[in-house]
């Protein structure tokens, strides 16, 4: 389909451990329309980052492997590409922003050198021009005095500034797709809103698609068009941001939404909770994993619930306990 930039079909990603292969991502499918923002939300360990890393193939080697499915970007299956071909895709077609800006930057090199590297690798450009291009891109991500900042080291910048530099690097070659893995988790709320605004401004300007991974439903509501809710390696619900908050269908989504304290919940009232904890990846059942958390006996959870479109553009994992139309 032409209006989808990226299509992920039945993606399976596993990690090799002493106990055999463990499926961190278990047959998930979703698509990213052109120019739109798709949010992936879920608790820690639900596989949201692994999904992103499978798309760009930056899984830890040799333990992490994509064992099945397709990742189609602009009609090309990324899983089938060689390492060298994939290297050209990253940076040019897909840009990635990682969570912790301090670890994403090399502390030993100047900002300018790190951004120039992207230009030097992917375009035929002289060092001087690359340096100049770095200044331009820093200006674009609204770093004050980019001519000075370009010669500084990461430790001289604040957290928000560092994240801007990481964004600048990701956007240097004007990618079609930007993957932002928890871009604001390490930042303060005020800086978070600056960074989210910046991403959406640049998105509009450059017409790219964004995959925004976060655990914060507030961030999802403010900046995403579509939302994928993941639980224990699977997608339990996928729909537009409006309908997710207005009419969540899966019990997990409902639980997640109602367990957040909001500014308008009565003070000191008891919050709704989701009982139990996410099962460990070693114990994942074939059947509905949210039922597993709620204490349904494992022996009953043998059938994988069907993931289907229950109303236009609203996909749900239709476990009879968790989805009651």
């Amino acid at each position, binding site marked *: 389909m032409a209006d989808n930039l990226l299509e992920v079909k039945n993606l399976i990603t596993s990690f090799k451990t002493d106990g055999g292969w463990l499926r961190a991502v278990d047959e998930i499918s979703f698509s990213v329309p052109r120019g739109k923002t798709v949010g992936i939300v879920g608790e*820690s360990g639900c596989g949201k980052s692994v999904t992103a890393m499978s798309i760009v193939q930056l899984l830890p080697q040799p333990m992490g492997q994509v064992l099945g499915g397709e990742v189609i970007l602009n009609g090309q299956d990324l899983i089938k590409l060689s390492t060298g071909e994939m290297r050209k895709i990253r940076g040019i077609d897909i840009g990635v922003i990682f969570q912790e800006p301090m670890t994403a930057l090399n502390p030993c090199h100047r900002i300018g050198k790190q951004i120039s590297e992207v230009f030097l690798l992917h375009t035929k450009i002289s060092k001087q021009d690359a340096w100049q291009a770095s200044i331009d891109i820093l200006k674009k991500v609204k770093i004050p005095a980019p001519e000075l900042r370009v010669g500084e080291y990461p430790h001289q910048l604040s957290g928000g500034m560092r994240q801007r530099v990481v964004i600048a690097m990701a956007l240097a070659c004007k990618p079609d797709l930007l993957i932002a893995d928890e871009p604001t988790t390490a930042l303060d709320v005020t800086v978070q809103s600056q960074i989210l605004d910046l991403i959406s401004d640049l998105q509009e300007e450059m017409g790219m698609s964004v995959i925004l991974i976060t655990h914060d439903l507030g961030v999802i509501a403010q900046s995403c068009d579509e939302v994928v809710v993941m639980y224990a390696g699977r997608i339990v619900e996928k729909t537009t941001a409006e309908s997710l908050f207005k009419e969540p269908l899966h019990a997990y989504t409902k639980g997640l939404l109602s367990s957040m304290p909001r500014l308008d919940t009565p003070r000191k*009232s008891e919050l709704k909770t989701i009982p139990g904890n996410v099962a460990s990846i070693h114990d994942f059942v074939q059947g509905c994993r949210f039922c597993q958390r709620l204490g349904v006996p494992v022996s009953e959870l043998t059938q994988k619930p069907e993931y289907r479109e229950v109303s236009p553009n609203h996909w749900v994992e239709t476990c009879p306990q968790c989805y009651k139309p």
Partner: protein
Amino acid sequence: MSDNLLEISNLKMHFPIMGGVMLRQKGAVKAVDDVSLFIKHGETLGLVGESGCGKSTLGKCAVRLHAPTSGTINFDGQDISRAGAKTLRSTRQDLQMIFQDPAESLDPRLSVRAIIEEAFAIHKMGTRSERNQWIAELLDRVGLPKKAIDKFSFEFSGGQRQRIGIARAIALKPKLIVADEPVSALDVSVQSQVLNLMLELQRDMGLSYLFIAHDLAVVKHISDRVAVMYLGKIVEVADADTIYKDPKHAYTKALLSAIPEPDPSLKNNRVTLDGEIPSPINPPKGSAFGHRIEHKRYDETIGMDLSLVEIEKDHWVAADPCCLSDEDYKKCLTLS
């Protein structure tokens, strides 16, 4: 006895910066700069602010993990700001702390039993069997299974670890618990479990909390009153509902509007704040927030007294012409 359990007045915590050839002091990080606040019996005071504003330092001063540079800390009728180790030991029966990262604040080489028993051992309370009984009761109280007692902290999930941290903090039946970002490392669904537990314990044991966090929705939920901190100073204190409904200070307003509300229909009515919190080593001479927003009246505030004024009943705000509406500022002037 007054009804204030904790009273902090004019507290300053300056960390010296040493440098030069002779390693003399060449400056100071003014992490907490002239802060006064109080907490009543059974009350929760929420403390919010951006990272680096000094909220954790203030919390640590309150339990005397830091010795403050100046000012007094009156806890339960006793000034502990200069107290020695012996006095502190007995005071800390009533004054406990819950830390942010339960993975780092629990000793990985101690079993849950040993972690909690330490509290009783230090205060020489109970016999072995009594202690075991107490620990079992505590675990039950915080919702951990009985068999947890002989496990190690790394065998638990984040939420359960935080429960161990809470069990340790309530072991000696304290009066005040300073909770420094107790839920920010947890997932949403687990976060609400821990918040419910903290509320329940407060109801049952009559605890007071100093609840430090950067998540304003969480703070509002658990607090009776909220104090907003900016660059080592408190800029606004009020009842939790009031501060969210009728914030006076520009920084409080900006902070509130930066919270992403989980409702897509509320998109785009945010005030985005430019810039970042300045360094507490060389804070602006006048209004710190006025400097950040480059307010036209900033120059006036240099050398001005920007201390808190009670603008409405129980609603205190810094009398700062850059950060208040003209009307509110005039009111402050007449009141002070």
